[in-house]
């Protein structure tokens, strides 16, 4: 039962003084609750009016809690995105038929002979075919008479010269930088060694390997070559265990029977399963390439353009590719 006009909380105080002070029927000052339940009460000259000071400590604590909460939500979202089963996703391949443009040569005896403008076989092309291993379907792309190099920037996709374009090194989500060491025409444009797999292109020759330190990095610099790092998948015919357990569409740059090929899975799978399938396909060495729906294309022997993946709406300026031309 409250017998006072105002009750009091445990974090409040009030001065008890005579009730007789108030002669106008107002609530006696004695019982005026002093709002001192604040960290920094301020007093007026009569010691009775308190004005709470700014609750900066409280706001600081609230800010810190909100910040930590936001971080938790961010990490939760990242983990969820990485672990939850995604929508069914399959390798999308779109084939655009090449327009045949022939040149008409008029001979002396007025015979008109059409000849192809290009001999793609001589200029290089990409052979591709589907294969099934362990009940999983893959498409293998084999560049023929083409030389690889690296390119940075999505404008690479508009270039008509490359016959084969596949995304190479990963891009950091935090600052958009390239993950791991990256050498472009002998210049080290990104440092770091996040992943043990590497691809060096020296004098036009691609070398795939798995090593934390490799002399190919220096060699690529000395010879105006190229170098990037990715997750290792196969090393000397043995699958490499990877920590990433999520499933996704997979792409790899692999060495099979001395040839460098790109292999794409048609369905989602873990990196470890992918590594095992690559071993079963006969891969000696293999490193990962940007997977999921990363976009690229290949030009086949007939000049048809085979597009795979999906172009991002706002790609990073550091989106980089291994191209063959």
């Amino acid at each position, binding site marked *: 039962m409250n017998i*006072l006009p105002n009750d009091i909380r445990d974090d409040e105080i009030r001065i008890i003084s005579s009730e007789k002070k108030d002669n106008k029927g107002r609530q006696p000052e004695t019982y005026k609750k002093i709002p001192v339940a604040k*960290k920094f009460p301020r*007093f007026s000259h009569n*010691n009775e009016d308190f004005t709470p000071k700014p609750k900066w400590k409280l706001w600081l604590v609230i800010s810190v809690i909100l910040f930590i909460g936001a971080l938790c939500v961010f990490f939760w979202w990242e983990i969820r995105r990485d672990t939850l089963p995604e929508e069914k996703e399959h390798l999308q391949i779109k084939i655009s038929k090449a327009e045949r443009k022939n040149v008409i040569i008029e001979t002396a005896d007025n015979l008109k002979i059409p000849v192809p403008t290009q001999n793609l076989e001589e200029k290089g092309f990409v052979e591709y075919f589907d294969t099934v291993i362990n009940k999983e379907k893959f498409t293998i792309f084999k560049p023929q008479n083409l030389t690889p190099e690296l390119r940075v920037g999505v404008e690479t996709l508009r270039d008509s010269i490359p016959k084969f374009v596949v995304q190479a090194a990963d891009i950091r989500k935090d600052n958009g930088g390239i993950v791991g060491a990256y050498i472009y025409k002998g210049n080290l444009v990104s440092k770091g060694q996040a992943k043990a797999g590497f691809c060096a292109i020296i004098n036009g020759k691609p070398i795939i390997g798995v090593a934390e330190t490799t002399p190919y990095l220096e060699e690529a610099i000395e010879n105006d070559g190229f170098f990037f790092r990715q997750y290792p998948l196969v090393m000397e015919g043995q699958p490499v265990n990877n920590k990433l357990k999520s499933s996704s569409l997979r792409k790899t740059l692999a060495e099979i029977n001395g040839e460098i090929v790109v292999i794409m899975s048609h369905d989602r799978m873990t990196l470890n399963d992918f590594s095992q399938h690559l071993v079963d396909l006969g891969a000696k060495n293999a490193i990962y390439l940007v997977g999921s729906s990363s976009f690229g294309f290949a030009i086949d022997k007939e000049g048809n353009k085979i597009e795979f993946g999906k172009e991002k709406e706002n790609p990073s300026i550091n989106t980089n590719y291994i191209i063959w031309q």
Partner: protein
Amino acid sequence: MSKNLLFATTTELIRVPSESVVFISADGNYSSIKMVDGGEYVLTLQLGQIEKRISEMVEDDDNRFVRIGKSLIVNRDYITFINPTRQKMILSDCRAFRHELSASRDALKALKDLIEKEVSL
């Protein structure tokens, strides 16, 4: 000389000089008055009722009693130490008695500020 404080129930009466009261603490429907001589009186009155009685009996300029939270009334003349962080307060005459009490941080901070302000005025 200040007025005596008089607390009466149907069964008992306590009459003490206000300066002799060190603090009054609540224990449910009972209240305990701690005196400077070490004595203690237990009353069948709630602390709110005692607070009201005090306000009716003290002189106009007598602001020595301060209600601290729900369970304590102290005579501020005997406050010798306040540490809001440790929620500690000591009431003492620096000679015969010394009582260590606890209250909420915010209340003790307010009390500390109140006393500081009074000293600076």
